[in-house]
């Protein structure tokens, strides 16, 4: 059954890489990834290669397994099958915090900020492993403590400024508007100094002008930090405009991969995903 459906789907085996990424080691290399929850196969046969400065998208209907894939890539779930290589290192068996140290950071579909802490402190928690201050120095407040804290403050403020969040630096993260929280989560992920960031529905809950700003910011993150971005998003306008490569999943399997144009024209995608959207707009009209 599995073999049969794989043949039927004719998933292209080539990978899209930006010209400048062509002969570089991919930042993310996922092979035949799969996970079962009891009897339910949530993800199966998932392959993707992402170059060091690529913006890629992951789309698919609700419950397709997109968030589960992110959880597999970050070590939140251990896969039943397949492997994930981050910068060439297999994350098998690693806990989430170690996987993060390999250079992958993420945001969450249901925002997970440290709500009781200020926006600035949220970013500084993200910088935790980058702050050079020993435990003894932290307890005794030795000179290196003051030095590292000052540096951390400056860097965190710079990062906040990058996403136009300077004004809210001293506010409790939990009290910020939805769209601001989403951007703060991106800053916190950036603070871990990643080589790839995963954004799980970054535009969810944003108004159209916020979404447009976010599109610019996503490109600016890639251009400034020279990192890869892999995002899940239901806003087709954002996905088609920002992503250079798109993978479409349904029922935990990849239906197709390609450029936005290729994906847009693929009949399987239209049926599984876009078709549904069109149907909806038809009904509305």
């Amino acid at each position, binding site marked *: 059954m599995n073999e049969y459906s794989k043949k039927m789907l004719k998933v292209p085996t080539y990978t899209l890489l930006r010209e400048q990424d062509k002969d570089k080691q991919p930042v993310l290399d996922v092979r035949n990834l799969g996970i079962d929850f009891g009897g339910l196969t949530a993800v199966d046969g998932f392959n993707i290669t992402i170059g060091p400065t690529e913006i890629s998208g992951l789309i698919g209907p609700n419950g397709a397994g997109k968030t589960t894939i992110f959880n597999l890539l*970050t070590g*939140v779930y251990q896969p039943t099958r397949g492997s994930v290589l981050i910068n060439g290192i297999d994350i098998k068996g690693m*806990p*989430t*915090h170690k996987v*993060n*140290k390999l250079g992958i*950071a*993420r945001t*969450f579909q249901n925002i*997970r*900020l*440290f*709500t*009781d*802490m200020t926006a600035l*402190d949220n970013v*500084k*928690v*993200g910088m*935790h*492993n980058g*702050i050079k*201050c020993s*435990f003894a120095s*932290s*307890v*005794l*407040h030795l000179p290196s*403590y003051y030095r*590292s*804290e000052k540096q*951390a403050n400056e860097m965190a403020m710079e990062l906040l400024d990058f996403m136009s969040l300077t004004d809210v630096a001293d506010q409790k993260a939990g009290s910020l508007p939805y769209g601001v929280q989403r951007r703060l989560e991106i800053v*916190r*992920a950036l*603070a*871990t100094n990643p080589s790839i960031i995963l954004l799980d529905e970054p535009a969810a809950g944003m108004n159209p002008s916020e979404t447009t700003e976010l599109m610019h910011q996503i490109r600016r993150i890639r251009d400034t930090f020279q990192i890869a971005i892999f995002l899940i998003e239901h806003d087709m306008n954002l996905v088609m405009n920002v992503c250079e490569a798109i993978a479409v999943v349904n029922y935990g399997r990849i239906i197709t991969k390609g450029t936005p144009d290729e994906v847009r024209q693929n009949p399987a995608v239209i049926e599984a995903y876009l078709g549904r959207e069109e149907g909806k707009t038809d009904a509305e009209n």
Partner: protein
Amino acid sequence: MAMKTLLKNKTTRTNGITYLVVIAVFAVMQVLNGAGLLGSSVKGYLVPICVYISLAVSLNLLVGICGELSLGHAGFMGIGAFSGIVIAALLQDTIPNDVMRLLCAMVGGGILAGVVGFLIGIPVLRLRGDYLAIVTLAFGEIMKNIVGNLYAGIDAQGFHMAISTSKMKLGEGGKYIINGPLGATGVQKLATFTMGFVLVLFTLFVVQNLVNSKEGRAIKAVRDNRIAAESVGINVTAFRMKAFVVSAFLAGMAGALFGLNYSSVTASKFNFNTSINILVFVVLGGMGNILGSVISATVLYVLPEAMRGLQDYRMILYAVVLIVVMLCTWSPKFKEKLSIVSEKIKSLFWGLFKKKEAGTNE
């Protein structure tokens, strides 16, 4: 300029206030004592108050700041007390200076308590949920029973230790340091109010510094959102461990000072009741509120002692005071600060209440 920005910072200001309050109270006490205005009973409270302040502040690090419920703080206190007594006795001849010997005993007691905390933490802190509360509860009781059956002494051959009378053979002229159920007897009272004050300052210094460092931010982050904390590279188990060991270390130091404040100490002093009392200090002082712990430990320690004259009624009065304080602090701001621990208790009550309500509606 730097000072100005420091003072603007709210946390540095509250920390400063805590230090100032402690130093001011110490100075007043010293002056009163010098003028001979303190009764002998009040003098007797001074060291234990310092000890309980340290215990409350160190437990607050664990319960209030990390959101980990520990029910065995008295166990670490006990380890510190008995190891401190043994260390002080062993160093009798090597270090003639009382203050130095007391310091060694406190540091030694702290280290031993920290090591035991580490060993307990290895299996427990990997688990999520209420395991820490259960295990620390058991640990406190086990500790009490082990120490209650421990014999230690010195003779011409050196140091002897055993867990039963029959195995304990002290040579001619040997002296018991710990004598099983009788506890430690003939302890040289090394503890002083000044050392108690130093201990309180040290505890405040360690806990407040820790809270205001990247470690403290990580601890708060773990409590706030464990999954997010892991996603930014924070090793949650390691952080729970650090907080647990630091807290045990400070409790051990306080315990050593406590043990060396009396001529005899029994293991039953470090029972579940004592652990709960310290927890009450923390809860009533405010979860995560360091100055609150200092004040509530002082007031709640003195209160039952001061009411001794009322005999049987004093515990009733004490309970009433606890309830009143609880009601007074039940403001929205306080509620906000309640950590996971009290939230759990609350949700349990609400759950029962709602079920009952739903039942009556039908």
